[in-house]
């Protein structure tokens, strides 16, 4: 039985490889000519999302095989495992319950985590009292002055999600808090913090230390700098910590040890991965900027996507469809790059966010059982605002020698034309249409190339080869719900991909060794006698640092 299953999977992989050989010789345009109802089969419609993936180089037959492969890996069971709290993160022996972070209070918790739903709501409640206090100008610093600036200190998952959402929600009504500014600091070299501290005042600044382990080195170097700045002139450190530092972590002991006062602590759980954590207290900066109601709307949107993912049939299931497209392109078409191209300035951080989400999750070469994977796994994901990238790397997409598959993402409705809206809205509306037109034009040229040029003898320098596959995701409007749904969509896509590749998306062992080695390297920078164990290259680099540092001193 098992052997039969393995055999079936092997033969499907072989079929798909054969399909890819054909596809590589085929023009995407041919698919439109031969398949009359292509859009019917290559588009998905769910709530405020519409996906057109007809411009992928996938025939109807291939799509059928991909769906068959999906059912061979028993995706329904794997989705069930995720939502029922099984230890899907097997290398760390944990569940991945990020969907519980946006579950309504009435939802039944997974069997092994009976208190999880209530725990989450308890933290949301604690979060809301902090948020309300700050937003109503009642959080005070050590001199009794009201807090005017909030600085989030965190890196990776503790920063990217909140940063994305804070940026993306700018146009919502009633808009952001007027009495507080929210800032983000992550870089370990001090660039951001030193610039920020020049503008801030000790008396009126509140810091959020966001770190799941509460030991993240990058973050704590920034924390140390900030604490020195805050206590300058012999101010009472306990008083300063009590009124100016919030901690968000899964490690209560470490927060106590550092001196975050009890009422300033917000808890995470080990079952939330950093890159899946913006729905937890890690989202505090979002809630401070826009209010708890907006934060809840984001959670609701993500929860709606959770329900869609666990209930919809595979062929109309957005996360599954996106995953199959990426699976096909990376593993069979051997395309190594995936560009994320939002045509809405509010989503300019989305490519960055997705780089972390997908590459940290699925940049793996070992299967769940510890063997070498059968496929090429996560492609390189990068991107920028589409309209800006048109003036940058689109040249390579159109005429370079690399194959790249693209994700176009755009909102459709933007800028009210109500009577009471801003005077310039009419003009802004034209800009929105221009942006949509560019989005659609670029994906057409990428797919169909020269077919838009009427003459037959095309100058080779002005020739477009076309055949770069892409999908276009339309968002009705960028509301907090839609943003929540969009992020959850990519979370689930990432999970489905990991199932297709048979890898664990919830660990990130690859980032550990560099951290360990940096400790001894730091020692070696200070102490020349501790360099023996390093390679020639590192020793040379260290010696050059010695030379320039000492000449600077003179």
């Amino acid at each position, binding site marked *: 039985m098992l052997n039969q299953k393995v055999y079936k999977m092997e033969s499907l992989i072989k079929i798909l490889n054969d399909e890819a050989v054909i596809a590589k010789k085929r023009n995407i345009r041919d698919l439109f000519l031969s398949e009359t109802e292509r859009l019917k089969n290559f588009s998905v419609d769910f709530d405020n999302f519409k996906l057109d993936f007809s411009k992928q180089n996938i025939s109807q037959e291939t799509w059928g095989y991909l769906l068959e492969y999906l059912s061979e890996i028993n995706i329904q069971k794997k989705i069930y495992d995720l939502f029922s709290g099984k230890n899907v993160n097997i290398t760390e022996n944990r569940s991945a319950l990020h969907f519980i972070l946006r579950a309504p209070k009435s939802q039944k918790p997974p069997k092994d985590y009976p208190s999880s739903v209530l725990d989450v709501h308890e933290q949301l409640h604690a979060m809301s009292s902090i948020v309300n206090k700050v937003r*109503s100008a*009642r959080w005070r610093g050590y*001199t*009794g002055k009201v807090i005017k600036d909030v600085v989030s200190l965190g890196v990776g998952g503790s920063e990217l999600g909140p940063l994305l959402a804070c940026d993306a929600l700018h146009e919502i009504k009633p808009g952001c808090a007027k009495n507080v500014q929210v800032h983000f600091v992550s870089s370990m070299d001090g660039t951001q913090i030193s610039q920020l501290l020049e503008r801030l005042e000790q008396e009126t600044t509140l810091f959020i230390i966001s770190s799941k382990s509460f030991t993240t080195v990058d973050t704590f170097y920034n924390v140390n700098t900030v604490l020195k700045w805050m206590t300058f002139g012999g101010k009472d450190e306990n008083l300063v910590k009590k009124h100016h530092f919030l901690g968000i972590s899964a490690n209560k002991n470490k927060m106590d040890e550092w001196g975050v006062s009890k009422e300033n602590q917000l808890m995470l759980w080990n079952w939330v991965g950093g890159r899946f954590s913006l729905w937890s207290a890690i989202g505090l900066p979002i809630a401070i900027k826009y209010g708890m109601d907006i934060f809840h709307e984001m959670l609701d949107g993500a929860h709606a996507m959770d329900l869609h993912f666990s209930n919809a049939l595979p062929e109309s299931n957005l996360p599954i469809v996106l995953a199959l497209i990426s699976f096909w392109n990376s593993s069979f078409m051997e395309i190594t790059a995936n560009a994320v191209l939002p045509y809405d300035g509010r989503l300019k951080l989305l490519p960055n966010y997705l780089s972390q989400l997908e590459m940290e999750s699925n940049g793996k070469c070992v299967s769940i059982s510890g063997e070498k994977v059968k496929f090429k796994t996560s492609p390189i994901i990068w991107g920028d605002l589409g309209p800006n990238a048109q003036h940058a790397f689109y040249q390579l997409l159109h005429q370079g020698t690399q194959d790249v598959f693209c994700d176009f993402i755009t909102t459709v409705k933007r800028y009210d034309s109500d009577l009471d809206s801003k005077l310039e809205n009419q003009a802004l509306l034209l800009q929105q249409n221009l942006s949509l037109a560019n989005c659609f034009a670029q994906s057409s040229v990428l797919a169909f190339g020269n077919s838009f040029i009427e003459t037959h003898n095309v100058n080779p320098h002005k020739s477009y080869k076309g055949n770069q596959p892409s999908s276009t995701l339309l968002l009705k409007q960028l509301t907090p719900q839609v943003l929540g749904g969009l992020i959850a969509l990519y979370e689930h896509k990432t999970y489905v991909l990991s199932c297709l590749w048979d890898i664990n998306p919830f660990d990130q062992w690859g980032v550990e060794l560099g951290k360990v080695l940096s400790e001894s390297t730091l020692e070696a920078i200070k102490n020349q006698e501790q360099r023996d164990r390093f390679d020639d290259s590192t020793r040379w680099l260290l010696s050059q640092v010695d030379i320039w540092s000492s000449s600077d001193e003179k």
Partner: protein
Amino acid sequence: MTQQDGYYHKLIFGVLAMKSDDLRINVYGDSLESWAIAACLAQSDFKTSICKGPESEVSIKVNQTYSEPNLDLLIDDMLSSGKLSMKQTLFNKANIHWIVYKGKSLDQLLKFILLLCDNSIPQKIIITTNLGVGTHDFISSNIQQTAINESFSLCHELITIPTFIREGSAIKDFYSPPLLLIGTDSIEAKNTATYLLEKTFEKAGNTRLLSGSEVEVVNNAVSAFLAMRVSFVNELANLIEEQQLSFSAIIEAMSCDPRFGNIYNQAGCGFGGIALEQSVSNIQDLFKNSESGSLMMKATLDINNDQKDILFRKFWQFYNSDISGKRVVIWGASFRANTASLTNSPVINLVNALGSENVEVHIYDPVAFENFADSEYFDFPITITKSLYEATENADALFIVTDWEEFKAADFVKLKNKLKKPVIFDGRNLYEPEEVKRNGLHYFGIGQ
């Protein structure tokens, strides 16, 4: 009026020359100002009615909250003599309509005036409001428009008379204001105003007849300047406090310089009321479309908002932020002495700041709480006390927010014995710091 019967005004009213007895004046609105105007006009022998204004939804009634003993007496007098009456309905058979509008909706005021102008008879309308510069012209063009629409050659008279009555000295202000401003564009209307306020004209320090808009600017700019002066003094007090110098000595010396003068020189925990704040924002609006707007007005309000927080911060620092569960007493709630009004009073910010830090608050004010519920203003429950020392027993601090006369004679020995921690946070600089300290109390004033 003391004139004998039969005294006729000569043509001041043009064709309508008549005995003052025949004039019927309606004063609209239910505020201290409308009652004061109505009572004083009645006293001048005009047949005066006080009527529901544009914004009041409740029926008009004799209001006892104004803590103006003389005014209350005059109102009673005029009502019983029949010179003043109360009308519950919109009554437009009058010759002159004086609308005292305290609301914030220009639309509401306009609708009300259009109603008065609805019966094909030219109306004489006086408006006293502080809706900002442009109000007069806006209403004027609208009522003339209706006149044209109805193809009558109607010419309504519109006069703007800015507030010249202050709470606490209403009657005196009516008869002898330092400056009486009459704003209108027609000669007839000027005559109406001159006739109606004949006595006031005689005794006013100065009188200016200007256009409606000009009067609005004068009125708002003067108040805004005073507000600015208060914010300047407050800012200076805070800066001086940091330098460990004596603010009281400095401001006293400054006042001796005639270029600086000696009014509105008190440092305090922020100004309140309607007039100053409203004027500042009106001037801000007036210059809104200018390049940088009014930087002066923005700073004025920012400083004042911060100043309203200053007593709380002194308290917070005194207890090193350990204030949860403490119990404090506040003397004074109204935005200044001799008024019951809590509008924009610094006490609102103070109570809410204390409440959100879980501090129990007791307030004593001679009049402010007689007629309305504290919940209208405060986000946290407070206890109202009936006498000065009632709640001071075992309290952790005493705050002073209003400069009521009776607070000035505080018994420091008594306070020292009653308070658990003898500390006073004085937002009005009522006491001599050395004297308070001699009696063993901690004392924190503004700029001291």
